[in-house]
């Protein structure tokens, strides 16, 4: 093989020049085109359509498109049509930040609905804060955040985990606990909170077993066996699962195969919804639980309308609905209401107008946007049924207000988030009276 690097010939130089010029021209035209379209209000959709998170996030893109279509059928917003701008950040966290920047500064989106994993949210957070735009985040998460530019329509730990544990303690008289999670921030924080909560309720430290596995862990033989062993100490045992995503399928399969029935050791999960169950044979899982703020099986007229519209839109009567979809439903309607109240899509005006906005949720009540940028939600506990739906066995009598700063983590127990005047602060320390972070400049 020759040693030389080929030098560019004159002809080659000309070709290279021509190619470069074309690309530059195309780029310029595209940028110009993007800047031109006024007359519509752009809504950004920042969900992964490929990669590991596509399984969960593609549905959210579809539901957003449906909601935008429905709003346009009602006449749009402020007299203009809504236009969806869809991008694919491909489960790549730096790409999330890049796409967020593109949606805001190039496409000039008035608001963005997106993200799923905490990493993706943390990666786009600086972009939204720097460019002062709005993000609606629909997924249950670990809390410990309260940004001025984000509206959190998913559950904080006290709107999901704590009521689930209370239910198990009361209903099944559970005395021994396995906290099994994927090794990342949401399960770690949730387990930290739960451990502190259980100990405060009198559970001995020996009666709590905490275990972490990597993403996508597929060989659960050992862990399920150790759960069985832990449960053979004579006290009623339950598993609180913050196992995320793909790993749930082999976990439940192994549970079923090793004969761990819900009547022996019930498993309550926080990241398993109708969408995830669609990929599992649920017959051996009868009776295992999940805690959410919404189930497809909720029996209300508004939910039925939503599900029918969804089936008509996707042309597939078997598509399931789940909690993050409801979160986008609530978030989108809140945004529309706030924009109408403010009369403009300008971020500052809309952010101020969002506080206190109240819209119907799909379980028959209303959800309100609180000053901490989180919404009030009911907590439902459901048992898995053979058809992949949930049988609702418990519901909080009222709505639960989110505690975005956990009282069980030493550094945040004195913090509150309140974006109303005069505080305007995401992390206000009530003891010292100082705003520690996220203060509006």
């Amino acid at each position, binding site marked *: 093989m020759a040693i030389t690097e080929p030098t560019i010939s004159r002809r080659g130089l000309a070709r290279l020049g021509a190619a470069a010029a074309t690309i530059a021209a195309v780029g310029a035209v595209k940028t110009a085109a993007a800047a031109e379209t006024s007359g519509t209000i752009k809504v950004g959709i920042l969900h992964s359509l490929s990669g590991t998170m596509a399984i969960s996030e593609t549905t959210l893109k579809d539901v957003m498109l449906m909601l935008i279509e429905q709003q346009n059928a009602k006449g749009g917003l402020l007299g203009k049509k809504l236009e969806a701008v869809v991008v694919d950040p491909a489960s790549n966290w730096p790409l999330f930040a*890049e796409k967020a920047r593109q949606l805001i*500064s190039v496409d000039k989106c008035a608001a963005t609905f997106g993200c799923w994993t905490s990493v993706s949210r943390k990666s786009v957070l600086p972009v939204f804060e720097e460019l002062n735009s709005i993000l609606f985040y629909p997924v249950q998460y670990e809390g410990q955040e309260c940004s001025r530019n984000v509206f959190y329509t998913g559950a904080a730990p006290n709107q999901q985990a704590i009521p689930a544990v209370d239910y198990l303690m009361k209903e099944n008289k559970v005395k021994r606990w396995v906290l099994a999670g994927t090794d990342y921030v949401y399960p770690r924080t949730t387990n930290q909170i739960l451990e502190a909560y259980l100990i405060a309720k009198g559970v001995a430290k020996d009666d709590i077993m905490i275990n972490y596995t990597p993403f996508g862990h597929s060989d659960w033989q050992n862990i399920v066996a150790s759960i069985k062993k832990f449960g053979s100490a004579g006290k009623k045992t339950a598993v609180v699962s913050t196992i995320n995503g793909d790993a749930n399928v082999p976990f439940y399969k192994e549970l079923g195969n090793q004969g761990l029935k819900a009547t022996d050791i019930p498993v309550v999960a926080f990241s398993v919804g109708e969408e995830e169950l669609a990929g599992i044979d649920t017959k051996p899982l009868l009776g295992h639980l999940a805690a959410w703020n919404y189930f497809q099986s909720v029996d209300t007229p508004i939910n039925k309308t939503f599900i029918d519209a969804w089936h008509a839109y996707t042309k597939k009567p078997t598509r399931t609905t789940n909690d993050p979809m409801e979160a986008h439903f609530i978030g989108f309607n809140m945004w529309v209401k706030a924009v109408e109240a403010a009369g403009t899509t300008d971020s500052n005006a809309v952010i101020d107008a969002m506080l206190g906005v109240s819209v119907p949720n799909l379980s028959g009540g209303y959800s309100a946007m609180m000053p901490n940028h989180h919404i009030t939600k009911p907590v439902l506990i459901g048992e898995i049924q053979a058809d992949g739906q949930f049988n609702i066995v418990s519901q909080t009598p009222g709505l639960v207000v989110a505690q975005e700063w956990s009282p069980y983590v030493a550094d945040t127990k004195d913090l509150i988030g309140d974006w109303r005047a005069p505080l305007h602060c995401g992390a206000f320390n009530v003891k010292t009276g100082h705003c520690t972070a996220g203060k509006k400049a």
Partner: protein
Amino acid sequence: MKLDRTAYLTLGLTIGIPLVLALLNQATPAGSALHVPTYVVALAGKYLCFAMLALAVDLVWGFAGILSLGHAAFFALGGYAMGMYLMRQIGARGVYGNAELPDFMVFLGWHELPWYWQGSQWFPFAVLMALIVPGALAMGFGWLAFRSRVTGVYLSIITQALTYALLLAFFRNDMGFGGNNGMTDFKDILGFNIQADSTRSALLVLSALCLCAQYLVARFVVRSRFGKVLIAVRDTESRTRFLGYRPEAYKLVVWTLSAVMAGIGGALYVPQVGIINPSEFAPGNSIEAVIWVAVGGRGTLSGAILGAVAVNFGKTWFTGVLPDYWLYALGALFIFVTLFLPKGIMGLFAKRPGKPVAILEAAK
């Protein structure tokens, strides 16, 4: 050092375009037709950092015949070194307001900095770590591998094992590097606000300068006597050994050099994208780096730069324009290039007959 037409062109474009972009971003007001949005500046900086990684890969693959499927590990290690420095710079402005510990340590319940974080608050230390850590790992790994004469596919697979093991290790929250969330929410670098336009432009120009420097170094290496032996090792290792040279030593030197180059790329990458995360260690990233070099033209340093910029630009464009189908486009691109452009894009622009004169010339 002689610079031929290709080199001038490469250097010119690599310095020229970023300079123009930076100037237009800083000098023209927003809203004017000539204004380059900050978004483009950040993007260009990212492309240049990837180009550094591609250059590193081309150095070992195009000239030493080592196909590394784990080079992104060195890139990521350099990134983490810089990331640690940037995390320390946040100080008390983090979410938990803790001046000593980064946010993720507070939330994990740690009370003091682990020993391996000591010193990361100084910028020179961070730069040093970005050079030393990838270099040391490369040297250790390379010494073991080349000494045992692991070659070809086997070497490629164990480089993949290396990066995969690092991926798993850094994903663990217990490791103290931020776990799956990685490090983010950076505030400033060397006192400058990391999100300011001026900082971004400065970083872009700095990346361009580093890339040019690396290009020149690489060129120097491959055109020197050392480079000749290296190419001989690439083409027929046994024969070179029988001629009296020690291929292990040559491979080790260039392998370590390339790791350090990748580390520098990573260190400049992190302030520009604002996040470092274990998924940078993913084997897929390393394979993509190899694709960049293949697309640009393997064994032609300019090709590596060209390929990195072209493919990443394509990716940015496709994920915006065809969000549902861009993977088809990317996959098709890889297949097309390997089948029809074995010499990469540079092959299209090269002088038709590539005369093998370099040896004779150097001998004169």
